[in-house]
């Protein structure tokens, strides 16, 4: 009895390939063939655009034209005009300047014996000013390229509560001697010009001098304006607490008393003239109500000024109302993120719910790669959606704001590109995080709740003023995944400008640091998801 050996049946079809490209193809087919998910992505884009662009409505009236045919000014006519500093940024440049012109190299020295200030507390100009300095009230000596606001400068100054500083070209700020100025503790200041280089010195006694910093002002003309100045920014105390924020704002002025004023150099004009540079903010249209000016009694100069020499920032208390940042048009990102995260969670939990995961894992037993393919697909789809949406929202929003009279702080195209691409990346990493959490929890309800509470709710209570005290809110935006929204900030914070640096304009972490926090969470969740999907039965 012989047994006929029968060759086992082999399909004539060539064996399917199990490469990563095939996996990507399979996951992409799954994504695009579920109508609800595609609609979810479109909803995310629409939410982002709606929030970012509908908010641009400024019905405020900013003034009226004079004369018999007076009409109110609204819209683009309300746009503030700011001088542009040497670094290209918009600046505030208004102070009282007692000056001479100096040609060629030279040096100026002065002793500050008194520094006082006054605040007009929201009353009509000139009414009952309260005594007191702002923390960044300034008085000192300055070498400036011209009297044109925004021109290059270097200055040595005493400040309200930050001691002696050397500042130049609006953004640079170096600390000198600490402490407050009084007749018992005067401060000696000196600036020396040599070509394009200006060196600042300070001294407590006029005998022992310390170099504070060297400023390199490229292209400084041979004839410059040199002299004494005083200025004081608008008061802005803004505190947030549960149930809202409170603030007090008002124009201020500062008065510095100088003696031992010495000017050395080959050619200087010889007589002191006083004049206001720029227009002090907070007073009348051309500075009515302020006591700007200077008095000279023998060798003693008393200079009073109001305004600021600093970059323009935005926020409550910055004194630059009607300004904003470009990322205010991306405020809808968190709303879009909700839709994106719901889709990303369902991209994996729907497989568990329908039992499709067993087919998927049978076809491709290397489970980590399956998850990687899913992450790549959902991440890329979200990135493209975010990129297109942000690239529409920012320019259109800036255009609409301009028409409505809202001034957007200008940024370089590189920063704008980082904001747009960063928003897309923020959404994509958020989607990957949601996918990972969905894999870990395997249940849509639990996973959606976890990611919405983890990112969106923390963002909401961190950003909306009045929900949390600002200290607690800042910590939330440092340690939770919501820190990733920092990638959207487009303008730097300046320690030498007193302002409430609040989100969504300013975040407690730097742009990339905040984004790295979010990426860290996503990476951790992804590692855990890969570990669990390999360990558990599907």
């Amino acid at each position, binding site marked *: 009895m012989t047994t006929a050996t029968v060759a086992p049946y082999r399909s004539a079809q060539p064996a399917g390939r199990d490469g990563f490209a095939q996996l990507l193809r399979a996951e992409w087919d799954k994504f695009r063939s579920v109508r*609800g998910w595609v609609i979810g992505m479109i909803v995310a884009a629409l939410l982002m655009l709606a*929030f*970012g662009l*509908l*908010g641009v*409505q*400024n*019905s405020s009236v900013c003034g009226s034209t004079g004369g018999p045919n007076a009409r109110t000014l609204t819209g683009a006519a309300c746009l503030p005009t700011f001088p542009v500093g040497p670094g290209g940024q918009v600046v505030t440049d208004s102070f009282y300047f007692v000056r001479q012109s100096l040609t060629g190299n030279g040096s100026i020295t002065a002793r500050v014996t008194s520094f006082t200030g006054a605040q007009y507390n929201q009353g009509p100009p000139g009414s009952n000013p309260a005594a007191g300095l702002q923390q960044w009230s300034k008085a000192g000596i300055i070498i400036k390229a011209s009297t044109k606001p925004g021109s290059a400068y270097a200055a040595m100054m005493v400040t309200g509560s930050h001691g002696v500083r050397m500042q130049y070209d609006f953004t640079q700020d170096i600390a000198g001697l600490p402490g407050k100025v009084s007749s018992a503790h005067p401060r000696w200041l000196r600036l020396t010009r040599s070509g394009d280089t200006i060196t600042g010195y300070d001294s407590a006694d006029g005998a022992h001098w310390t170099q504070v910093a060297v400023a390199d002002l490229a292209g400084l003309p041979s004839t410059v304006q040199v002299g004494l100045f005083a200025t004081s920014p608008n008061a802005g*105390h803004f*505190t947030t*607490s*549960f*149930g809202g924020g*409170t603030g*007090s704002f008002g124009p201020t002025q500062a008065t510095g008393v100088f003696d031992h004023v010495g000017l050395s150099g080959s050619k200087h004009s010889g007589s002191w003239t006083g004049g206001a540079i720029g227009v002090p903010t907070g007073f009348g249209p051309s500075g009515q109500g302020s006591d700007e000016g200077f008095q000279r009694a023998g060798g003693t100069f008393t200079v009073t000024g109001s305004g600021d020499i600093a970059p323009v920032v935005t926020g409550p208390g910055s004194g630059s109302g009607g300004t904003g940042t470009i990322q*205010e048009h991306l*405020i*809808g990102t*968190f*709303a879009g993120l*909700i*839709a994106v*995260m*719901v889709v990303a*969670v*369902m991209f994996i*939990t729907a497989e568990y*719910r329908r039992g499709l995961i067993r087919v998927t894992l049978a076809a491709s037993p290397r489970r980590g790669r399956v998850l990687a393919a899913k992450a790549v697909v959902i991440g890329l789809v979200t990135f493209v959606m975010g990129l297109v949406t942000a690239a529409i929202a920012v320019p259109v929003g800036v255009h609409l704001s301009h028409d409505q009279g809202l001034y957007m702080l200008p940024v370089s195209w590189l920063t704008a590109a980082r904001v747009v691409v960063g928003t897309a990346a923020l959404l994509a990493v958020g989607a990957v995080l949601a996918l990972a959490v969905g894999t870990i929890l395997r*249940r*849509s*309800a639990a*996973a*959606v*709740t976890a990611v*919405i*509470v983890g990112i*969106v*709710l923390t963002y*909401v*209570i961190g*950003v*909306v*003023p*009045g*929900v*949390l*005290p600002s200290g*607690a809110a800042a910590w939330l935006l440092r340690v939770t995944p919501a820190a990733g929204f920092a990638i959207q900030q487009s303008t730097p914070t300046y320690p030498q400008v007193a302002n409430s640096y609040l989100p*969504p304009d300013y975040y407690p972490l730097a742009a990339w640091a905040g984004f790295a926090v979010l990426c860290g969470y996503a990476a951790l969740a992804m590692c855990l998801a890969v570990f669990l999907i390999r360990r558990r039965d599907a």
Partner: protein
Amino acid sequence: MSRAAAAARPDTGQAPRPGPAGSPGAWPGWWAGLRDALHAEWTKLRTVAATAWMLAAIVVLTIAVSAAAVAATKCNPSPAGLSCAADTTKLSLTGVYLGQALAAILAVLTVCNEYSTGMIRVTLAAMPRRSAVLAAKALLVGCLVLAAGTLAIGGSLLAGRLILPGNGFTAAHGYAPISLAHGPTLRAACGSVLYLVLVALLSLGLAAAVRDSAMAIGASLGLLYLPPILISLTVSNPVWLHRLERYTPMNAGLTIQDTTGLHGLPISPWGGLGVLALWAAGGMLAGGMLLRLRDA
């Protein structure tokens, strides 16, 4: 779930009653159907572990967030004359911001778990009166959230009463300890419990309309948390701002917690809760209609 399915027909083996199946349009039949549905739904709810966990979470997390908010707020009048203006009752009820999300999730799970397991087909085969099924679910979820909410709100106010005096909110600064004998505080407390119940009902209706738990949770949390952002960050047009503050569920509903500055509110406290009640009624109506009109 099979135990629950068996419980849906508690009268198996007895003579068929004439009521429910015989006259589908009659009200006595609807009430009998509701009684059966209540029994079945109660069995389902109490035999699922998630219900107890969610209820416990509502109580614990609401009190925890309230206590944290109260502990983080200090009353130190500044020299500039800014007093520590705070609505201590509202402050003590901060946890409702989180508690409402948990109440919404409990409601969503009550409906969507049935859809995700296919149980809904058994439920509707056993109890064809779909409106009675949804009404039973709403009644039970409402009662459970009412009970959990009462504990949560009571605990939150107690935390405020114990912690606030230590943070400077003393009688010397014009803050009496929180007490339910104070009319507005009692109103805020009862209203906050009702607020949680109404949020749960709104989410239940949305869940019945959407049927998928991920989408239902996304939609109800979005409906709650998105308008406050719109109000505080983006919309500057005063007309729209006013409308949003008056007619969105969370902003209108939470005015019930205000006990100071009532004249400055965009809508009166009870009016605000009424707006939320309309939202909940609308959500339930939409869910009920869709449940009736669609195949499960």
